[in-house]
């Protein structure tokens, strides 16, 4: 009697699934040298950048896609994709927002990211990337005054070649793995951040990625450098239209923290996850890696992964500087037929390095959710410490959760602490909350938000509330 049934709930439609009707200009489909030369030409790149791309492309010819993730991935025909798409007549990035196509401004407005500076959240600067190009960057001048560089990477390649040359590929080698190499060959746009010595960046920096064009891959490249004693908090968000096809997003994100610098990188990933039968959705194959190059440096990754048909990403830290710290806080939610294989690598090279991993996986529907992690202590990593906590929460009985934590230890003075739990939302918990007046969805979302609160709290304040809502919406329709 009164059993809560699935039919009581209609799943809330993916709210960001609309398409912007804007004419786009694409480079013909296919992956070949000609396409790479065209991308480079579109971006007006110097010779060295083109050479770098081409050398990556050469490597790619002998590489194949990695297969080890716990995910069933339909084979991708890399020749049948567009690698570059931009709004038509977008020859040069508009100098000011007044010149930006109103349709684009409207798109971001609809996504909840107003770009007009007087309307934006105080204290947040935004770079808006639409398919393969950055269409607007806010608060650039204001940040410039204190020496902070925040611009599309295509602009940085032209205006700050010495910084880009020095650091691009220094954290994720061109040859790292197939998707990282692919990205190096065909990357289009993403953000570039440089925080000068001793500067605490006074605003949150954020990039908002939007895929709009069909049959198009997005290959974002982001590079963040925090010079000695500096601090920056950076946030990225992502959405895409609802389509029956699977679209590829293969990003490379590199972070470099020098002596005493700190980078806090947060992601709210809400790519289109596909429909309730598993049709469509983004393939999110992303390589994110931070290098704690200097002593006492710190890199902290926080990710809320709710979208994508398949998520495959392992934001990692290489702890080279003595006393450096790496952190990874993750909430990964899968529903319907979504698949997530995500986690982190903490590579301890320096003395007294510390890392902390808190991973919360929530699976519902028929989805599959895997935590995959590696904690590695090298010989010189004296007194290194790691703490890992992996919790899985199952909603319903048809989903899967896996935890694969690996450790390598060549240092005899280091310590690893590992805790793992798997739990289910119990009928008793739901009934208790419902007896107090919460309906089934509210009850579930209360319990789930409690489960991942420790991670949600790590997000910048402005986004924590949004993320909480997103967590609830992602699980709608899963109470049964």
């Amino acid at each position: 009697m009164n059993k809560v049934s699935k039919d009581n709930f209609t799943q809330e439609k993916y709210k960001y699934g609309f398409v912007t009707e804007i004419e786009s200009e694409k480079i013909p489909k296919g992956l070949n040298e000609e396409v790479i030369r065209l991308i480079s030409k579109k971006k007006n790149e110097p010779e060295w950048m083109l050479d770098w791309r081409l050398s990556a492309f050469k490597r790619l010819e002998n590489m194949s896609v990695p297969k080890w993730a716990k995910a069933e991935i339909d084979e991708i025909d890399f020749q049948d994709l567009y690698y570059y798409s931009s709004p038509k007549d977008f020859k040069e990035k508009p100098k000011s927002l007044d010149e930006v196509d109103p349709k684009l401004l409207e798109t971001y407005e609809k996504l909840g990211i107003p770009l007009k500076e007087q309307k934006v959240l105080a204290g947040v600067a935004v770079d808006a990337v639409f398919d393969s190009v950055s269409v607007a960057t806010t608060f650039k001048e204001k940040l410039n005054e204190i020496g902070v560089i925040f611009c599309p990477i295509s602009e940085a390649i032209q205006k700050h070649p010495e910084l880009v040359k020095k650091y691009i590929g220094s954290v994720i080698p061109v040859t790292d793995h197939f998707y990282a190499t692919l990205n190096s060959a065909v990357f289009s746009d993403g953000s570039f951040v440089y925080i000068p010595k001793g500067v605490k960046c006074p605003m949150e920096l954020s990039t908002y990625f939007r895929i709009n064009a069909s049959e198009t891959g997005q290959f974002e490249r982001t590079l963040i450098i925090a010079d000695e004693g500096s601090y920056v908090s950076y946030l990225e968000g992502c959405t895409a239209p609802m389509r029956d096809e699977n679209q590829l997003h293969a990003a490379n994100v590199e972070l470099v923290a020098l002596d005493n610098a700190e980078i806090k990188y947060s992601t709210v990933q809400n790519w289109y996850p596909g429909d309730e039968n598993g049709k469509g959705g983004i393939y999110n194959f992303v390589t994110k890696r931070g290098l704690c190059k200097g002593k006492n440096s710190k890199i902290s990754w926080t990710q809320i992964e709710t979208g994508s048909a398949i998520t495959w990403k392992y934001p990692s830290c290489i702890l080279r500087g003595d006393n450096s710290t790496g952190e990874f806080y993750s909430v990964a939610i899968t529903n319907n037929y979504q698949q997530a294989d995500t986690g982190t690598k903490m590579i301890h090279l320096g003395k007294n390095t510390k890392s902390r991993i808190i991973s919360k996986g929530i699976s519902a529907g028929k989805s599959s959710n895997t935590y995959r992690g590696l904690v590695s202590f090298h010989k010189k990593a004296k007194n290194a410490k790691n703490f890992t906590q992996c919790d899985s929460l199952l909603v319903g009985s048809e989903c899967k959760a896996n935890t694969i934590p690996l450790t390598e230890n060549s240092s005899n003075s280091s310590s690893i602490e590992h805790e793992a739990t798997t739990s289910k939302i119990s009928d008793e918990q739901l009934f208790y909350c419902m007896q107090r007046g919460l309906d089934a969805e509210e009850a579930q979302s209360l319990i789930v938000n409690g489960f991942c609160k420790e991670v949600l709290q790590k997000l910048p304040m402005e986004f924590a509330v949004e993320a909480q809502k997103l967590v609830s919406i992602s699980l709608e329709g899963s109470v049964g």
Partner: protein
Amino acid sequence: MLEIKNLNVTVEEKQILKNLNLNIGKGEVHAIMGPNGSGKSTIAHTLAGKPNYNVESGEVNLNGEDLLSKDPYERSLNGLFLAFQYPIELPGVTNASYLKQIVNAHRKSRKETPIDAGEFLKILKEKSKLLDIPMDMHSRFVNAGFSGGEKKKNEVLQMDLLDPSLIIMDETDSGLDVDALKTTADAINKLRNDERSFIIITHYLRLLEYIEPDYVHVFQNGSVIETGDKTLASRIDHEGYS
């Protein structure tokens, strides 16, 4: 205000309540006593709408409305409150935010705006004091690691916050020491008024010495075998159920 007519309930195919009849008027306090397995807790869970408590036949009306067709949360919003014998733990959910959320769910159903944080804190302080609940309990996770006494007080606190018209207490006295029992009973007595009715399920006389019932029902094998006033409770305490 509550009418139970010929109620038959099975749990996992076993019949627990058999042709149960019970009428509870506005403002009345009814105690239900009976040996283990007599169906005392089953009546509480059935009225609250717990899944797997299957009503085979019978009718229940609360304030003139059919209760059994409603979802558990609607029953709560309609004024039914069940104080659990074993309150459930909600790890990660702080008590304060939980309490605020359930209060707001009730306000929403009355088409009122969500409560202001400052106002809520004021009310919470006031009501916690009545129950001797330290405020730091509210920054802990709901019932997680609470002592038996703390859990029961937290139930009474919720009862007070939600302002129900029918309160069912399922062995609220178990797990309370003498002092806590007195504090809790005092708080419950303050909730008594002409509009609000109570069903108090208990094994023991001691709670009924603090909260005087208007009627006492003795349960056996899923139905009421005897009804009397509070003297019946004392008799049972002395003589047992046989």
